[in-house]
């Protein structure tokens, strides 16, 4: 086989160059508490009973003002919190951004809208928000009602029930003199002086496309895509939860929305950009770090001096202990020497005195006979010698081989005592022999290793290429083994894998009481353990943490050695081509995805609380163009637009006029690059000669309110209001159609 096929040739794919520390770290923004809002009754003073209150009842914010205002006076998130504080025994009610002022209020806050839809479904909250608006607009209500007309926006094809309930509230609870409903995006189109065109409104909970011809909306061709910024934020949260499953912090919905708003943008060429998004070059700019608040674990940094002092103290302690031990040993030694001299004296005395006297003397010192005394003396001598050697530092005389004279003498000639001693000597001899054998073995091995090394060096000097080749093969084999082990480990995770089934078989074999057939033939003993390798079975069945750390360690050490040798002698093998470099985190796509182009230290609380937004920055807003990405089974915004223009309105004489004015409005079109992307993609679906013009509303967020206010102050709109009498006569479902309204179904 060609060498290049055996091992990965030394590719230049080593570690990537390190990056400078991140330039900017973003923080997670707290939800906006606007502060207490004063009552502004100047508008009310200025208004007459004919001046309409204009309310853009949006799902991201409810905006309200007088029809003569240039901009809405109030813009509040559609929330209300009402709860009873049992300690104070009173009920609190907060609306709009005031709910962010208090933890309980935030916890109790409810949305006007059904989450993720553009239909109002919590009418108590709706009333609370309207209360707030009317209070802050300074409405006196001297005759038990607001006593003003109301213009209210509603979603395209609003549900009859929602409109009916809204009318009931406005007329019966608030005493509005008349009410008109209109579609927000059409009002925005009016504000931007559109006559004929396609209104593309991508807002908070949904996106709508409505063709308009001669200021008349063609609602039969209107289309809704159930995706807006709310869903984007939800999607981002979902992705982040999967990306950082053990993230210690919590990201709230408004915070996720802020993240989407601040960091996401529409890619002009999604396919290409996403493919290269995690590339090493430039990743430091594409990767945005969001720092979640955290508390640093305080590690007390000890000063140099303090550390030195501590070390000194430790040393001092050690010295004292050593001294004590030495002293104790010396005491012991002295005592032993005294004993020895006493016993020696005793020996001499015994030799001189009579047997009886000697016996008495021995007994008084707890000895049975003379031999015991001898033994004692010998023992003492030995231990003194040893202690001297250790403590006083006497030079060790070379240990001579011990002699075992009794072993030569036949048993018959020995008495009982002699036999005992012989047995002891035999034991000692075999002990000594074994030690000698082991020593010799060690020597031999050392010599062998030296010889091998010499041969290896010789080989390398004579034939470097061949040697390198051999080493590379060895390295490859080691890598292969490591991989195999990894695969086996992964396989064991799968219950049905072959590896796991083999394991189960071994477990069953080990646990079974009745011996297998083979064993029965061979007799009772299954000689398990006769071979040391038999015990390996326990290693193969053990899973989990420590199962084969040892072996793995061995393999890694082997690989490291081979690589070290290669690094030393193979000019083609560089630091870059070691396995460690190739497995380096800078090469890891997952690492780039999770932690950007910077190293990650799991110990650091700061880094643990960081979120890296990279692919999400274009992945999240892309859903409007490719809803299937997020599991939404609907066509994307461009496909809908081209469907309306090229198919549904193919026969219309206004088709070309519509193409000249594709109008974008709503908060979700504020993403950088939205207009350009829509233009480019829509362009691609049109005949080449068609002229296309795409524009964005001057203020995609507030123009709906402004258009509605403008419309309300026009005298021509007066006929489009439903009066109180009409409401009473025709019921809550009743709707007067006008050029910015829904159609009555």
């Amino acid at each position, binding site marked *: 086989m060609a060498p290049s096929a055996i091992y990965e040739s030394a590719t230049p794919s080593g570690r990537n160059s390190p990056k400078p520390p991140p330039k900017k770290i973003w923080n997670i923004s707290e939800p906006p*508490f606007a502060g207490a809002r004063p009552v502004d009754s100047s508008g009310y003073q200025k208004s007459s009973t004919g001046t309409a209150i204009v309310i853009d009842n949006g799902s991201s914010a409810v905006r309200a003002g007088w029809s003569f205002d240039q901009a809405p006076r109030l813009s509040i998130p559609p929330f209300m919190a*009402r709860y009873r504080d049992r300690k104070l025994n*009173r*009920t*609190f*009610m907060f*609306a709009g951004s005031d709910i*962010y*002022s*208090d*933890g*309980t209020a935030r*916890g109790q806050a409810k949305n006007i809208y*059904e989450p993720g839809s553009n*239909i109002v*479904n919590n*009418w*108590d909250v709706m009333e609370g928000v309207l*209360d707030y608006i009317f*209070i802050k607009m300074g409405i*006196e*209500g*001297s005759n*038990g009602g*607001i006593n003003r007309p109301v213009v209210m926006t509603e979603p395209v*094809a*609003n*549900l009859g*029930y929602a409109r009916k309930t809204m009318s009931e509230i406005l007329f019966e*609870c*608030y*005493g509005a003199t008349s009410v008109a409903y209109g579609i927000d995006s059409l009002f925005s189109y009016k504000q931007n002086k559109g006559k004929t065109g396609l209104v593309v409104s991508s807002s908070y909970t949904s996106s709508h496309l409505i063709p308009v011809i001669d200021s008349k909306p*063609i609602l*039969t061709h*209107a289309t*809704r895509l*159930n995706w807006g910024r709310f869903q984007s934020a939800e999607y981002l949260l*979902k992705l982040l939860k*999967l990306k950082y499953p053990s993230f210690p912090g919590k990201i709230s919905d408004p915070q996720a929305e802020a993240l989407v708003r601040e960091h996401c943008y529409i890619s002009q060429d999604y396919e290409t950009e*996403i*493919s290269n998004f995690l590339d090493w070059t430039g990743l430091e700019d594409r990767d945005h770090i969001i720092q979640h608040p955290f508390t640093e674990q305080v590690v007390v940094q000890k000063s140099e001096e303090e550390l030195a002092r501590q070390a000194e103290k430790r040393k001092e302690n050690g010295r004292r202990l050593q001294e004590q031990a030495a002293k104790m040993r010396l005491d012991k030694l002295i005592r032993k020497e005294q004993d020895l001299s006493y016993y020696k004296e005793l020996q001499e005395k015994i030799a001189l005195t009579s047997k009886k006297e000697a016996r008495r003397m021995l007994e008084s010192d707890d000895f049975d006979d003379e031999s015991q005394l001898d033994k004692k003396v010998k023992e003492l001598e030995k231990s003194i010698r040893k202690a001297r050697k250790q403590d006083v530092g006497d030079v060790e005389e070379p240990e001579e081989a011990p002699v075992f004279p009794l072993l030569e003498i036949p048993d018959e000639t020995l008495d009982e005592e002699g036999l005992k001693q012989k047995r002891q000597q035999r034991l000692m001899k075999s002990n000594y022999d074994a030690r000698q054998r082991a020593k010799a073995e060690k020597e031999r091995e050392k010599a062998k290793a030296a010889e091998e090394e010499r041969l290896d060096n010789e080989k390398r000097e004579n034939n470097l290429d061949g040697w390198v080749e051999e080493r590379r093969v060895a390295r490859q084999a080691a890598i292969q083994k490591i991989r195999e082990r990894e695969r086996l480990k*992964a396989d064991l*995770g799968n219950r049905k894998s072959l590896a796991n089934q083999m394991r189960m078989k071994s477990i069953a074999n080990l646990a079974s009481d009745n011996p297998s057939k083979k064993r029965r033939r061979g007799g009772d003993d299954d000689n398990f353990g006769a071979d040391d390798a038999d015990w390996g079975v326990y290693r193969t069945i053990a899973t989990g943490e420590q199962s084969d750390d040892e072996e793995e360690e061995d393999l890694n050490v082997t690989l490291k050695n081979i690589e070290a040798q290669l690094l030393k002698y193979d000019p083609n093998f560089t630091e870059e081509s070691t396995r460690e470099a190739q497995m380096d985190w800078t090469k890891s*796509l*997952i690492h780039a995805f999770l932690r950007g182009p910077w190293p990650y230290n799991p110990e650091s609380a700061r880094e643990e609380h960081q979120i890296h937004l990279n*692919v999400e920055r274009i992945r999240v807003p892309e859903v409007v163009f*490719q809803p*299937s*990405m*997020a*599991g939404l*089974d*609907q*066509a*994307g915004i461009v*496909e809908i637009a081209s469907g309306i223009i090229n*198919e*549904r309105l193919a026969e219309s004489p206004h088709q070309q006029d519509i193409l000249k004015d594709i109008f974008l409005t709503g908060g979700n079109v504020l993403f950088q690059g939205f207009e350009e992307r829509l233009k480019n993609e829509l362009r691609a679906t049109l005949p080449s000669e068609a002229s296309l013009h795409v524009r964005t509303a001057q203020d995609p967020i507030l123009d709906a309110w402004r258009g509605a206010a403008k419309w309300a102050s026009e005298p021509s709109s007066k006929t489009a209001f439903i009066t109180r009498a009409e409401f009473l006569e025709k019921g809550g479902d009743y709707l007067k159609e006008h050029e910015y309204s829904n*159609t009555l*179904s």
Partner: protein
Amino acid sequence: MAPLTQASDDGSHQALLDQLDIYAIPKPFRNPHWKPPQRRNKNVKQIIADVSRKEASVLASQNNSGTSTPAIQSTGGNTPTANGAHLHPNIEHAAQSLDRLVLERNLAAATGGSVLPTGPTVTYTNIESAPSFHPSSQKRYCDITGLPAPYTHPKSRLRYHNMEVFGMIQSMGQGTAEQYLAARGAHTVLK
């Protein structure tokens, strides 16, 4: 409960709450006799179910003559249609609802022959965008990293970008794969 504002001490926070609270503020513009109907909060699903029940009963009266039904367009130009044939209403179909045709003609005459398209009324449900048929909706992206995904993990059905991501999928705990699928709406729902 922990105050979230800068006014962190209890007294000033309570003062702020008192200032913000609109419960105690008199609301003279509200009708004091207003009693909201019971159970007026309905979710969208409920409302739509009610509407569709109602719709089903009136559907018969909404049949149109077929004249205003947009004919199939030859957008690609690859499939030649009989010249001009599609401009005329389908006689056969119109004949089925002649009464409707007459009604519509009368209506058109009354409104001065305007070309306002009629057809099924616009409802919340029928303006929803249809599923995509465009080939671009067949694009596959890695469920983990979002990068283009040429492969599918056979066991978990997760789409993945490369070998490294594959390794990650292999080592995933139970249920994690299903969560990834849920983000794409491809998870298994047991009913």
